[in-house]
C-alpha cells in the first residue's frame, strides 16, 4: 500500500480536539491511558525482536494538586528493540511521527499513544521527559526532552551517550503527569491482569504509588508468529483504493494488475474473475472509466471464488498460547480454546479466538465473566455495547447445559488489520454481521466442548457416587449377614466390588 503522507498540524490543537480519541478525558482516565499506551509500545518493541517482553512500570507520587488530582512520576522500562538515536527526539517529542501506518495487525493505530501521554504530562506539569534507549549496540543514549507545542517540534534539553557494556537493548521512558490513581487503580490492575492473560509470554511488573508490587510472570516463552504486511483483499476494496492502485501500478493489462496488487489473486483466479466480469485481460487498467472502476469494485465483491485472506498478515495468539494465558491468570478447572479460520469483513481479514474457562478460581457471579481483547490488548470499557456481549446474551446457553450462575469466564480475542471498533474510543467491537457470525459460530463451538466436559464430569461424578454407594453398602451387607447367619468369617466381597468398578469403567 502506498506510504501515507504526514500532515503537520498543531499538536496541542490536535490534542485538545482529540482528548477523547486518545483517552485522556479526565485525571483518572489519563493515568490509565498513559500506562496503557507505553506498555503497549513496549510490548510491540520486544515482539518486533521476537523476544519475550519484560516490561517494568513504576508509578510514584510526586505531589498534590487538588484533593482528587496528584502529580505522579511514571517510568516504563522494556527490553525491546530500542530506538535509533536520531529518531528518539521525534519519536517522543513530535506528535504523529510513527511507524504504525502499514497494512498489518498492530496494537495501536494512531501512532500517537506514547507521545500523547508525554504531551499530556508536559501540559499538566511543565516538566521534561527522560528517554533512555539502546538498540543493543555499543552505546546507550540519554535524552531530556520537552515539546515545542506550537511548532510540534522536540526541544532537546540534554543528551548523553553512555557505554553499553552489557549489550542492553530497550527503552526507558520517565515523565511526570497529573492523575487520580485511586480512582484509576481497579482499571489499571485489570489492565495488567488481562494484558498478562493475552500476552502469556510477557513478564509484567507494576509498582504502584503505595509501593505495592504487582508481578505477572510469563507462563511460556513461545510467541505467536509476527504479522506480515499484506496486499489488500479484493473483497475489501473501495473505489478510492482502486483508483489509487491504478495510479501507482506499472502494469499495463488487467490480468497482471489483478495478480500483482491483490491478496490471494493468482493467474487462474484472475482469469476466472475477468471472464466472470466480462473484462478483457489485456485491458489497460489506467484506461478504465470511472463507471468501469465502480463496476469493477462491485464485481470484485460479487465474485465468489476469491480465496479468503491468508492468516499470514494476522498474528492471532493461537489456541495453545491463549489457553496458557487463561490458565495462568484465571486458574480454571477446565478451559477450551478455539480459533476460527480467517474471515473478512469489508475485505479486512480477521480471526476470532474464543476461550471458555470453567471452575477453579473463577468466581460465581450470577453472570459470565467476559474478557474482550483486540489485537492482544484488553478492552475494558463499554462491555455491554460490544458485539461479543450481544452474542453471549442472545445465545441459548441452556442448550449447552450451561447457566449464568456457573463459574464461567469467556475470553474473546479478535485480531485484524483493521479492528472494527464502533467508536474512536476503541473500547468495543462493532456489531458487524460478518464479525457477529464468526463470534457466534465459534461461541457455539466452545460451548459444545464445554457441554461435553460438563456432561462427562457429571457422568464421572455420578459414577464416583455410584461406586461410593456400593463400596459403602456391600461391606455392611457382608457384616450384617455374617452376624445374622452366625458365621465366623466375613464373605469375600472384593470380587463384587471389582465387578462394579469394571462395569463403571465401561459406562464412561
Amino acid at each position: 500500500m502506498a506510504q501515507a503522507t504526514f500532515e503537520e498540524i498543531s499538536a496541542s490543537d490536535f490534542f485538545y480536539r482529540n482528548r477523547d480519541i486518545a483517552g485522556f478525558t479526565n485525571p483518572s482516565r489519563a493515568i490509565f491511558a498513559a500506562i496503557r499506551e507505553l506498555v503497549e509500545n513496549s510490548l510491540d518493541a520486544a515482539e518486533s525482536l521476537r523476544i519475550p517482553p519484560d516490561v517494568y512500570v513504576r508509578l510514584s507520587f510526586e505531589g498534590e494538586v487538588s484533593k482528587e488530582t496528584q502529580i505522579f512520576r511514571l517510568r516504563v522500562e522494556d527490553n525491546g528493540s530500542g530506538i535509533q538515536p536520531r529518531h528518539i527526539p521525534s519519536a517522543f517529542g513530535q506528535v504523529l511521527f510513527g511507524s504504525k501506518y502499514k497494512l498489518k495487525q498492530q496494537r495501536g493505530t494512531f501512532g500517537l499513544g506514547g507521545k500523547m501521554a508525554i504531551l499530556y504530562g508536559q501540559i499538566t506539569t511543565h516538566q521534561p521527559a527522560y528517554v533512555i534507549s539502546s538498540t543493543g549496540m555499543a552505546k546507550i543514549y540519554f535524552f531530556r526532552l520537552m515539546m515545542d507545542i506550537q511548532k510540534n517540534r522536540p526541544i532537546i534539553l540534554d543528551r548523553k551517550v553512555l557505554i553499553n557494556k552489557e549489550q542492553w537493548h530497550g527503552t526507558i521512558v520517565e515523565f511526570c503527569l497529573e492523575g487520580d490513581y485511586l480512582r484509576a487503580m481497579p482499571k489499571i490492575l485489570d489492565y495488567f491482569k488481562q494484558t498478562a492473560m493475552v500476552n502469556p509470554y510477557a513478564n509484567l511488573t507494576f509498582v504502584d504509588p503505595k509501593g505495592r508490587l504487582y508481578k505477572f510472570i510469563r507462563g511460556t516463552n513461545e510467541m505467536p508468529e509476527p504479522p506480515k504486511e499484506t496486499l489488500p483483499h479484493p473483497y475489501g476494496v473501495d473505489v478510492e483504493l482502486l483508483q489509487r492502485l491504478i495510479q501507482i501500478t506499472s502494469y499495463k493489462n488487467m490480468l497482471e494488475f489483478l495478480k500483482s496488487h491483490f491478496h490471494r489473486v493468482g493467474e487462474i483466479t484472475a482469469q476466472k474473475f475477468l471472464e466472470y466480469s466480462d473484462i478483457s485481460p489485456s485491458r489497460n487498467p489506467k484506461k478504465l472509466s470511472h463507471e468501469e472502476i465502480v463496476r469493477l469494485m462491485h464485481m470484485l465483491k460479487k465474485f465468489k471464488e476469491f480465496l479468503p485472506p491468508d492468516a499470514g498478515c494476522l498474528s492471532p495468539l493461537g489456541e495453545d498460547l491463549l489457553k496458557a494465558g487463561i490458565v495462568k491468570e484465571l486458574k480454571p478447572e477446565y478451559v477450551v480454546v478455539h480459533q476460527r479460520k480467517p474471515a473478512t469483513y469489508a475485505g479486512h481479514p480477521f480471526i476470532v479466538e474464543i476461550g471458555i474457562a470453567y471452575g477453579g478460581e473463577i468466581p460465581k457471579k450470577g453472570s459470565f465473566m467476559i474478557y474482550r481483547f483486540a489485537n492482544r490488548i484488553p478492552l475494558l470499557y463499554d462491555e455491554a455495547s460490544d458485539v461479543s456481549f450481544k452474542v453471549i446474551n442472545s445465545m441459548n446457553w441452556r442448550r449447552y447445559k450451561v447457566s449464568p450462575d456457573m463459574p464461567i469466564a469467556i475470553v474473546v480475542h479478535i485480531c485484524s488489520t483493521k479492528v472494527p471498533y464502533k467508536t474512536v474510543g476503541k473500547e468495543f467491537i462493532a456489531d458487524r454481521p460478518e464479525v457477529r457470525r464468526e463470534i457466534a459460530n465459534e461461541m457455539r463451538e466452545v460451548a459444545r466442548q464445554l457441554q461435553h466436559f460438563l456432561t462427562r464430569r457429571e457422568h464421572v461424578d455420578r459414577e464416583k457416587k455410584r461406586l461410593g454407594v456400593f463400596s459403602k453398602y456391600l461391606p455392611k451387607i457382608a457384616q450384617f449377614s455374617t452376624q445374622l447367619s452366625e458365621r465366623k468369617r466375613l464373605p469375600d466381597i472384593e470380587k463384587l466390588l471389582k465387578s462394579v468398578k469394571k462395569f463403571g469403567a465401561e459406562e464412561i
Partner: protein
Amino acid sequence: MIEKRNEILGSLRDLGTRVYDQLDSGYFPSITIPSRSTENINYDPHLRQFVLGDKSVRRSARNIRHVKPFTQLVWAATFSHELTSQRKTSTLRDVYYSAQAYEMTFKDQQESNNIVTDLETVLGFSREDFNIFPEERSAVFGDLTIEYTVPGYEGRTLNLTSHPDGVLIGPALTSAEFAETSADKVIAIEKGGLFTRFIEENVHKKFNALLVLTAGQAPRATRHFIRRLNNEMNLPVYIFTDGDPWGMHIAMVIISGSANAAHLRELNTPDAKWSGVWATDIVNYKLPTDPLDDVDIKRLYELQKDPRYKEDPLWQKEIKTFLKIKKKAEQEAFSRYGLTYIVDKYLPAKLEETK
C-alpha cells in the same frame, strides 16, 4: 410363645444365611419380597381380610437404587434378631435412631418404617413378633387374669381389674398368656372418655365384659389382642365407635383388617360386631348431631365401594342412611339424656340387637 420366638429367630437367621451364601459364592445377593403395591392387594372373602397376590419384587444389591434399602433390610433383620434373642423390645422410633449407631442413617421415620414393613413382608411375621412395638396408647380393663412371659416377670400373674385406668396393651401384655376370665364378652370402645365412664359405671360387672380402649384406630397389637380374646377365650366382640364414617371404619379394621397389613395374618377378628353408633341410631335415638362435611361424604362413597363393606348388608344400609340424613353423632351425644343413659338404655339394647 417360646416356640414362636424360636420360629422367628430361625426365619431371621435363614434370611441372613441366604444373603451370606450368595455373597460368599460371589453373587450380588437378592431377596424376593411379595409386592405390596395396590394392584397386588386383593380381598379374600374366606379369610375376610386383604391379602397379597402372587406378584413379587426382587430387591437386589446389584441395583444401585436397591443396594441401600437392601442393606437397611438386612440391618433391620439383624437388629430384630438381636432384640428377639435378648428378649428386649423396641419401638419404630427406636429403630430409626438405632440405625445411626451402625452408620445406617435413614432419611426419615417413614423410610425406616417402610423397611420394617418390608421385613414383615419377607418373613410373614408382624413386627410385634420380633419385638418392635408402636407407641402404647390403647388399654384393657376387666376380669381377665394374665400370666407374663417377659423376662423378670415369667410366671407372675395379673388381674386386669387391678388398675381403674385400665392396663396398657404393651409388649408385656401382648406376649402374656391368658389364664382365666369370668367375662363372656368383649366391648371395644373408640374413645378414652367413654372407656372411663364404662369403668365408673361398672359396665364390666353389669354386662360381664372385658373393656378395650382402641384410642381411635386400633394399633395392630390391640387388634391382635382382641383376636386372641375372641379365638382363645371364645369371647364375642362388640365395637362401639362414633357415628360417622371414620368410627365405622375403626370397627371395620378390627373386623376385616387393613390393606396396609395385607401381608400379615391374625390381626383381624372377622366375627366381631359393630354395635354402634349407627346412622339409624342417630335417627332412632334423636341424637344431637353435626352435619357431614365434604370429607365425610367423600369417605362414605369410598367405603361404599370397598369390598369389606359388601360382606354384610348392615354396612351398605348404614352408609346409605348417613348419606341420606347427612348427619353424624359422637358417642358422647347420649349425654343429652343424662350421663348414665348410654349404659342403662343404649348399651343393653345394642348388645341384644347385634348378638
